[in-house]
């Protein structure tokens, strides 16, 4: 099982993802420079958090035109696992690999805090080891995490069950008070129709060991490994 972690100029969570992959899980890791097109046979490509290209113009707007993104789009088109976290989610929306957009937080503040996520889909490659309605404690760290989609897109997302994670309270109730950024329907993470591309604002790679305050993020990484192993052994 090999993970690829894409590095753009301004990416800052690449090493956090790398730590979880090779130190915590002992899986294979490749860093993929944004100007390279070779995904080096990775089974899952992560677009990590950060401020690619300084977040200039719009978050993710420049990064989506990096050469590596052509390969990422082609890989996603073949059903490959593409996982965007924070800035990676913003890039996937800009690239049209996921619907909607991420706009400035409604409170205008950069929010760096713990959130509770309720998992609504446990049949995706990213959440197969999570219990249905399980509450995951995973932090956010962003200024533009306010998920927006126009009404037809939103109702399609909801009807097709593409919302994987929502901000919730500690008991898993999706309430306005638990929404840290104004995201429509408390949306924290979505998948594409096929289920192989996931975008989420919270950072599971920063909650993968008890020593940092929560190990809930590890469920997602382990789910990916399990799914990839199934594909590899099929």
């Amino acid at each position, binding site marked *: 099982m090999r993970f690829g972690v894409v590095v753009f100029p301004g990416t800052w969570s690449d090493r956090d993802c790398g730590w979880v992959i090779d130190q915590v899980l002992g899986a294979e890791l490749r860093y993929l420079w944004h100007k390279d097109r070779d995904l080096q046979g990775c089974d899952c490509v992560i677009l990590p958090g950060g401020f690619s290209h300084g977040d200039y*113009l*719009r978050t993710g*707007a*420049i990064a989506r*035109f990096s050469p590596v993104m052509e390969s990422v789009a082609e890989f996603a088109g073949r059903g490959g696992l593409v996982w965007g976290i924070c800035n990676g989610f913003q890039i996937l*929306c*800009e690239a049209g690999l996921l*619907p*909607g*957009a991420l*706009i*400035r*937080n*409604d*409170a*205008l503040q950069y929010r760096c805090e713990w959130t509770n996520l309720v998992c609504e889909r446990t049949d995706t490659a990213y959440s197969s080891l999570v219990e249905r309605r399980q509450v995951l404690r995973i932090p956010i760290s962003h200024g533009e995490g*306010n998920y*927006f*989609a*126009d*009404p037809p897109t939103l109702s399609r997302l909801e009807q097709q069950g593409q919302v994987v994670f929502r901000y919730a309270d500690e008991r898993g109730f999706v309430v306005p008070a638990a929404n840290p950024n*104004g995201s429509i329907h408390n949306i924290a993470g979505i998948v594409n129709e096929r289920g192989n591309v996931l975008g989420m604002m919270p950072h599971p790679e920063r909650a993968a060991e008890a020593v940092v305050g929560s190990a809930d993020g590890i469920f997602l990484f382990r789910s990916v490994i399990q799914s990839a192993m199934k594909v590899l052994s099929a």
Partner: protein
Amino acid sequence: MITSSWLARVIVTPKPVVNDPQGLTVAQGLRTLGFDEVHGVRIGKYIEIEVTAEHRREARERVEEMCRKLLANHVIEDFRFEVEEAPAELPTG
């Protein structure tokens, strides 16, 4: 071939359906200053682009393409622009 220099002034605005927390905050600030007549503020971007093209029409087509591909995100933003002829650059030195 004769080419000219053109200046495009691009304005990108949030779509009406998109919440604009920046605009709401500035509106509040203006009312705090006593501008009670303010009942709406929307904040977008202003971008100037210098381009070389044979004709204005060609310059317009290229700038429109730039807006669609990069300068505006059609999910959340609208754009408009105007193109004017820029004074020819004088050789230096």
